[in-house]
């Protein structure tokens, strides 16, 4: 009973059990993908990417302005968040062992746990209430607040992955500490930092709540940071809560576009981090 056949049975049994839990975990993902693709694909056309939205009942139209708006606001957010987030990450990795580092790290952790709707309210209070209008700038600030903490932490993690032997090698050559960080450590971690940036951008592109009452929405093209701006996520929200069947279809198609966009960013991040690992020293 306790011989080899039993061992083999136990092995097969637990392989099947663990394999089936994977299948169960994949069901929601697969059904989500299937639902979005099957409901969204029929409305997909070239004009959907480049046209303005149309009123209820009017066929055609698209989410061109929302795609541009999403890129515009994520771009604005990146302009603000990248220097702060990456800079904080570098500080945490290089000088973050003292009390200041502990405080910053704790703050970043708390901040990344703040619900995105709260971030939206903060941006509303800070920007919208003072400017007395909804604007792309307010949306960008809200997204930046979401990007900074995750950027800082993942930048720190990637820099800490750089072997200390490289720092020692550089210092032993008589290179000052700051130059060692800037010219040896950060370039070695660059692939990881770019990955962290792409993941943060992907996350920001998928946020709805912070944009709802900061950037609001816009039926037309807009690249003025002081004006309300459309975004894919808010556009999907508006279409989805409407009582009109054809807007529901457009919501599905816009959701598919968003999914493709975010998926593409994640894929790029994945590919980059894979290359980085291949090039890394032992």
């Amino acid at each position: 009973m306790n011989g080899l056949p039993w061992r083999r049975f136990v092995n097969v049994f637990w392989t099947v059990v663990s394999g089936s839990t994977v299948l169960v975990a994949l069901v929601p993902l697969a059904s989500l993908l299937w639902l979005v693709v099957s409901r969204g694909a029929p409305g997909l056309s070239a004009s959907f990417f480049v046209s303005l939205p149309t009123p209820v009942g009017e066929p055609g139209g698209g989410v061109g302005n929302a795609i541009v708006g999403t890129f515009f606001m994520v771009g604005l957010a990146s302009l603000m968040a990248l220097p702060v987030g990456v800079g904080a990450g570098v500080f945490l990795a290089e000088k973050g062992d003292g009390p200041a580092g502990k405080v910053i790290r704790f703050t970043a952790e708390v901040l990344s746990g703040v619900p995105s709707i709260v971030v939206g309210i903060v941006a509303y209070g800070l920007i919208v209430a003072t400017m007395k209008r909804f604007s792309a700038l307010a949306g960008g600030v809200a997204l930046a607040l979401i990007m900074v903490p995750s950027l800082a932490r993942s930048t720190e993690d990637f820099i800490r992955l750089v072997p200390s032997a490289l720092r020692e090698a550089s210092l032993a050559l008589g290179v000052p500490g700051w130059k060692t960080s800037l010219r040896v450590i950060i370039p070695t971690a660059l692939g990881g930092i770019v990955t962290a940036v792409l993941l943060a951008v992907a996350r920001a592109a998928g946020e709805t709540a912070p944009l709802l009452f900061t950037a609001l929405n816009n039926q037309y093209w807009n690249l003025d940071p002081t004006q309300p701006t459309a975004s894919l996520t808010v556009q999907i929200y508006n279409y989805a809560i409407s009582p009109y069947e054809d807007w529901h279809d457009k919501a599905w198609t816009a959701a598919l576009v968003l999914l493709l966009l975010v998926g593409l960013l994640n894929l790029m991040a994945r590919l980059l981090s894979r290359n980085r690992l291949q090039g890394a020293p032992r």
Partner: protein
Amino acid sequence: MNVNQEIASVKSTPPRSPEVVTESHQQRPSPATEAPVVPPKLTVEHLNAWYGQNHALHDVNLVVPPCSVTAAIGPSGCGKSTFLRCLNRMHELIPGARAEGTLRIDGKDLLGRDVDPVSLRRRVGMVFQRPNPFPTMSIRDNVAAGLKLNRVPGDHAEIVERTLRQAALWDEVKDRLGASALSLSGGQQQRLCIARALAVQPEVLLMDEPASALDPIATAKIEDLIHQLKERYTIVIVTHNMQQAGRVSDQTAFFYMGDLVEVGPTEKIFTNPSEKRTEDYVTGKFG
């Protein structure tokens, strides 16, 4: 006397051109006999080192003559690596670590608070236990890294070729200087790291078990290299391998439990040590 003084002055300033290397094959007296006349390159007096509360190195006194190889041997944790890392002040980079005492190169104190460790490290190069080339740089850029990062003017290409020749790596890499340093084998990477350390033209070269991660053939190459390098550089090498210490060094220092137990000409340490602990260690009774 006059002749000896001349030799001394030649040796205390390391020759900078490759021609001198091949010409300096002249016979020189053994370190033991020249010690009284040649001023020491490195003088260590009452060196103590701590990691936090842990007193890792107790009152070490040592004199290293120029253009010689000094080997530090001893069991793991005996303080030999700590000693080496004090010599270029890498020791103090570890949080909580500190060192006290006198460390002089050519008679000038280097452990003082007013001495910039960065400029010290340009004079005292270091090769580490594991090859650690910069992964983002090519072979050429790795060798020139110290020159580039410190903005040393000069013909970098010429220095790269010269130091790669000194490190006995030139013929193996001359056709692919632009390739990644990680494309080299472990032994080649270690010789690359030696070339990188030599490129900034240090006076003293510290080697922390430079061959312990390498196979016997690569180890033999590194040892040959040490023989050639000592014509121009003062070398202090830490090794676990006593045969290696016997092969490469002129002077051997035996460390045990943070004490420098005995230091003397390598031959004497291995054949006729004064201390019982040294004898037990080199004959393999412990360690």
